[in-house]
């Protein structure tokens, strides 16, 4: 069971690593931000899987914190980073 959980975590990390390509290459700010969001979701999932496989105490709280704050950066992005002419584009990206 432990091996299965860890393999699942590894698989999720692999998808996250694929998402990293979007952060690295962009091209737009929205693409980067959305990839960071995907990373937040993936990291939360991988964390829960690894924690239940290795039994690190309190790791569920870290996952809770990550889940709460992963969306946080995108709030700042929508709030301030988006230049006005890109607004339409951003709304499509967030929803």
């Amino acid at each position, binding site marked *: 069971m432990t091996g299965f959980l860890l393999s699942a975590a*590894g698989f999720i990390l692999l998808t996250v690593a694929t998402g990293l390509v979007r952060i690295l290459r962009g091209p737009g700010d929205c693409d980067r931000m959305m990839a960071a969001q995907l990373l937040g979701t993936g990291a939360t999932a991988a964390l829960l899987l690894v924690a239940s496989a290795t039994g690190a105490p309190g790791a569920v709280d*870290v996952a809770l*914190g990550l889940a709460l704050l992963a969306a946080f950066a995108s709030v700042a992005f929508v709030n301030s980073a988006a230049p006005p002419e890109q607004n339409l584009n951003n709304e499509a990206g967030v929803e």
Partner: protein
Amino acid sequence: MTVVNALDIGLAALVLALAAWTVAAREAFAAAVGYVAYGLLLSLVWVRLFAVDVALTEAAIGSGVTGVLLIRAAARLRGATPALDEPLAPPLRFLAGVLCAMVAGALAATVLLMPDPAPTLAPQAVGNLPSTGLGNAVTAVLISYRAFDTMLEKVVLVLAVVGVWSLAPDACWGGSPGAPRPARPEAALAFLAQVLPPLGIVVGIHIFWVGADEPGGAFQGGAILAAMWMITMMAGLTEAPPVSSTRLRLVLVSGPAVFLAIGLAGVVIAGGFLAYPSGSAKPLILFIEAFMTLTIAATLPMLVAGPPEQPPQP
């Protein structure tokens, strides 16, 4: 090679690659997003190292609050002409490279040349836990063994807010920090800012409360509460209080003030500055932590909001 080893190596490679890219990125916004992603992955690394307290702090401060700070700074700098565009003269570049290599080399040597087993105070820290009544050795170190350091850290936070506020133009002194809020908040943003805080406040208080016995504590809990306040401000549902507000100022200084008061009382009651009377150490520690949580929850949003930019309302 077992699955868990492969996972750890993969994770370390990801973190290193992302860190290198974030440093090398030419554009400020891209680097800020890279840094947020780096913080997320780093908190996973800390969990793998069984340093869950650090993982919580990394998630809350490293990628959460600092990420917002950097993204806003990058957005603000976007219009400005970059001052560092002209390349450094080659000899200066070479010198900078040598200096960086020396710092990195010294750090690497320190880590590699450490005696095995590394010197540690962990057994003593855990051995003295019963005298504090706590179950989490990290909290015991922070609030009991090294209480003086922690108290000064909180004073530094208040000084940081004073530093940010002192950048205010004369006309705006006493007004609210940050830009005026948008007239019509974006619907999706307002919805998120209404749904998330009730959950976040519960999680924040939970993490502060379990800090006595399990990973967590005032800083991590306070940072999550701070994030929730920031979301409502960024979505335009509430406005930052004016810097002249007495209530805000009281909350900002309450943490260090309570810490200092109890520390001074220790001189009389327990025979030493910041000493706790035996038997009542845990309630006192929780009392201090509660006020520290409040201070942190107010300080971080004030740091992110920046100096007052609106003239005070009459």
